[in-house]
């Protein structure tokens, strides 16, 4: 599978419907360059999870379907693949809400990530040790039942489990949801490390705009199923509209993006 283009993921104008009726994404286009971290930002219901699931082909299990546009991963169109085939191609999604296997031990959870690979016991142990170098906390808790670990640890389990599949690309859906700021930083440090040391490209859906942008190379902001704004992480962090809407540095109450754009066009007209 040779792919000379610089993008590992290229989403072009996709439209997604659930149950053939409910339009969840109107028009989303985004690119993830190889080896980069891209943040997908937006509020609840904006379409972040739907975008990720369209890529990992997990939409089908929720009766969703890409009804328009195309998704290209590593130079090949994603169309009829199953989620397990996508894992085989090196694309792994870490679902929203961690979704650990509660009755399995921490170590069993992580090992289950290697299910799609044909590894010997020795190879698995070697991989495990490598994974534990990133997730030191988990090594201490390897024998505990996953359901009894903390939220932060469960998020680490979910990422570690995905890493066992040896992905070229990770889709992280709200990895910091409900975590204390200290843990948010810890999770992002690990994500950054995996990105630089293991060369994994990352597409990250987050509501935590500030931290997400600080740890990404590029960002997209979506609202009601449409990309509203995109740019390098730095430019978005310094963007006045983003500041006002997502970083909480606002003089007035809460607004959405469309209101801001409307205001701007009104201003232009009155000038």
């Amino acid at each position, binding site marked *: 599978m040779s792919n000379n283009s610089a993008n590992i993921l290229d989403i072009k104008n996709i439209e997604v419907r659930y149950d053939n009726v409910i339009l969840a994404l109107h028009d989303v286009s985004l690119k993830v360059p190889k080896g980069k971290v891209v943040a997908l930002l937006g509020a609840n219901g904006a379409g972040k999870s739907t975008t990720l699931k369209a890529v990992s082909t997990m939409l089908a*299990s929720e009766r969703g379907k890409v009804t328009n546009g195309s998704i290209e991963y590593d130079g090949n169109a994603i169309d009829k693949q199953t989620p397990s085939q996508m894992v085989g191609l090196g694309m792994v999604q870490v679902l929203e809400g961690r979704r650990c296997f509660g009755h*399995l031990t921490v170590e069993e959870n992580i090992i*289950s990530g290697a299910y799609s690979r044909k590894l010997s016991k020795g190879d698995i142990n070697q991989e495990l040790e490598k994974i534990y170098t990133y997730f030191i906390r988990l090594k201490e808790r390897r024998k505990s039942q996953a359901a009894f670990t903390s939220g932060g640890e469960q998020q680490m389990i979910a990422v570690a489990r995905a890493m066992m599949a040896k992905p070229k690309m990770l889709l992280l859906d709200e990895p910091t949801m409900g975590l204390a700021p200290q843990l948010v930083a810890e999770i992002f440090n690990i994500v950054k490390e995996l990105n630089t040391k293991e060369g994994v490209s990352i597409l990250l859906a987050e509501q935590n705009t500030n931290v997400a942008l600080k740890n990404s190379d590029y960002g997209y902001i979506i609202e009601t199923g449409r990309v509203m704004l995109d740019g390098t992480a730095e430019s978005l962090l310094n963007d006045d509209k983003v500041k006002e809407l997502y970083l909480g540095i606002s003089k007035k109450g809460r607004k959405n993006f469309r209101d801001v754009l409307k205001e701007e066009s009104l201003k232009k007209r009155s000038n």
Partner: protein
Amino acid sequence: MANELLFFMEVLVGGLLAGTMYSLVALGFVLIFKASATFNFSQGAMVFFSVLAFCGFMQDFNIPFVLAFILAAFLMVVVGLCTERLVLRPLMNASEDTVLMATIGLGYVLEGLAQAAWGVEVRRLDLGIGDFPVPWIADNLKLFISALDITAGLVAAIMIIGLFLLFKYTKIGLGLRAVADDAGAASSIGIPLKHIMLLVWSAAGVVALVAGCMWGARAGVQFALVDLALKALPVLIIGGFSSIPGAIIGGLIIGAVEKILEVYIGPFFGGAIEGWAPYVLAIFFLLYRPEGLFGEKIIRRV
């Protein structure tokens, strides 16, 4: 006094051992419930189908016992394969209720196929183990306990240990436990649901065959086996639908309780209460502990 205690012991042990026969049937239900969160209504038909095929191989084709058993087990794997391919895969994204209805239909298909292939008359299944008290135990412990009951107990124990090892120490076992916990997350990391389904349906088929042999040897291989399998329902309600130890212990409780009630309370109701007593017990469980003894606690946010 001593005689009365001895009699109670006999009733209790006999009940417990008979209970393992319920456990065997319940095991098949648990396997499938774990993987697909569906109550498999065709489990009774699978018991009937498998043991009738086993008898057919032996009696119509004169295939020796062991070979016939292996053939029947293989046939159940084929049934599992067909079920996965023809029923479950097309319903992959359907709701659990739809799958539940499909298992009812599958049950009718299996019953029909079995009778079309092997006829409708009751067959005798001779395992070479009599359903009469073991003389050694009767002489030494003064307890009258059936050899078939003891065999059923042993077989159930072996099956449970085997399944436990399979789930705990093999890769596909790990996959099954992962799917049982969270099928969506399992598929997100590349565990192919279809392999897991194939495994549990085949395993449930083989378990059905073993249970069928035990019941068939006692009551004859006949259509009534289908309904007998529904005795597993109170077993599961008591033990918990998703727990293998629960199926075992639930079976033991049902076996012991129904025999004890039959002997000591039955006369006041004119006897034959073992037919319905387990269901009464199940109702109490549904009222006060709906997840069963070992089932996962059902938590809902209100």
